[in-house]
């Protein structure tokens, strides 16, 4: 695969985003989406390249294909679909790193409204927060004022 080995675990280097928790069963997961996109391009008579390219055309990811990092997303997505590595996608470090770099340079490429759109969940947030307290390390605390 020609990747330079370093002390960084390969899995760390290949992940464009942090690990996602298994989705609740009642929600379609990212895996479902990839399956949907893959199925969109499914044709056993076509090469894996052609199928991956077709999967990229799935309307379900239309928004991700566009914007300042659309090209990087597309390259990473196609690479992942075509990957035959034992850990699928582990041979796609470079396109995923390129996607990360693009997002860093364009912080609003994909993130816009989700985190600002928490309004509906505020009540639940307040309720849950009461059950969960956080103890911060002492070094992070404000110095106590000396009277």
């Amino acid at each position, binding site marked *: 695969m020609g990747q330079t*080995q370093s*002390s*960084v*675990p*390969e*899995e*760390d280097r290949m992940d*464009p*985003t*942090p*690990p*996602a*928790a*298994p*989705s*609740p069963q009642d*929600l*379609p997961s*990212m895996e*479902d*989406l990839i399956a*949907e996109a893959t199925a969109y391009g499914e044709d056993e008579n076509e090469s894996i390249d052609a199928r991956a390219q077709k999967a990229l055309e799935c*309307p*379900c*990811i*239309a*928004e*991700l294909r566009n914007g300042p990092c659309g090209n990087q997303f597309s390259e990473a997505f196609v690479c992942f679909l075509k990957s035959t590595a034992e*850990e699928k996608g582990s041979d796609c470090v470079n396109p995923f790193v390129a996607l*990360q770099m693009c*997002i860093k340079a364009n912080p609003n490429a*994909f*993130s*816009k*409204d*989700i*985190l600002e759109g*928490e309004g509906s*969940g505020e009540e*639940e*947030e307040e*309720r*849950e*927060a009461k*059950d*969960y*307290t*956080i*103890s*911060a*390390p*002492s*070094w*992070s*605390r*404000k110095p106590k004022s000396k009277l």
Partner: protein
Amino acid sequence: MADGPTMDFCKIVPPSLSAFVDTFVDFTVSALSLAGLIDPSTLRWSGGPTVAVQVGDVLDRGGDEIRLLYLLHRLRLEAAASGGALITMIGNHEVMNVHGDFDCAGPSGLEEFKNWGFWYQIGLSMKTKCEGLQNPKDPFNGVPKSFPGVRKEFHEALRARAAALRPDGPISKRFLSQNPTVVIVGDSVFVHGGLLQDHVKYGLDRMNREVREWISGGSDGGGGRSPGFVRGREGVVWLRRFSDGVCDCANLEAVLGMIPGAKRMVMGHTIQRAGINGACEDRAVRIDVGLSKGCGDGLAEVLEILDGGSVVQVISSDRAVHRRRYSDRTVEREEGLKVLFPH
């Protein structure tokens, strides 16, 4: 030998409570390499059918916590594919962090989680842009946004760490929720702090199940408290009765007597300045070697159990020390790398 092929050859990777916190990944790599469990040039599992146990406290060790969790996770999969096993256990620092107790986290530890939070939120945003995909669960919901008394520059990092590690959090669920709290391999019982008779009566399987349920979020979606047996000085991840000072041998004997076939209890939690050692005629094996100057001198040590428990030996990277104590015996070290203790 009666324990089956995978139980006859056990290597135990000691935990590290390190003052050289930023080198913890390197330390883990050296310990695993030392034991021949990974190839240091590729970081791939090379231990074949070996069973390795890491007795907890992966967290609160500097700025490579998530990297280390990933590494151990991958090695777990590779070990299983090779017919071996890498068992990563719950220590008191895992319990603390799932609780939201970040007292022992360092600045670099907060920074790593802050970066994680940045990328995780971008991931959430990308998922919302997938047509037909319902909005994913946001682990940041329910986590306070401000922390009275804490400097503002750390609020975001604290929030990310809490979102990641709280019960049902993306990191805790993926990397910690399946970890056992008590493990028996062959004739050895592994636990981070120690077991008392009441714990055995309560049920070892039951304890493992209840901790897993708590970290997974439980039936109430993550609001529940941790099980009582992982809290307090007598908690199984906090106990020092068999690892600090004079070992309570009579009590230990009684506890082991309640577990069929158990010959020894292998524990972490208390740094052993003399290196890995045994007490109570080696029924208590204390493997936390620490990493600070004067506490193991930053050298990795691994306890290795061979031939179904008939041979216990310490593998150490320390080539300079010629004499060291194991159990209540002083043993001459000849080769520098391996000290054998035939039982």
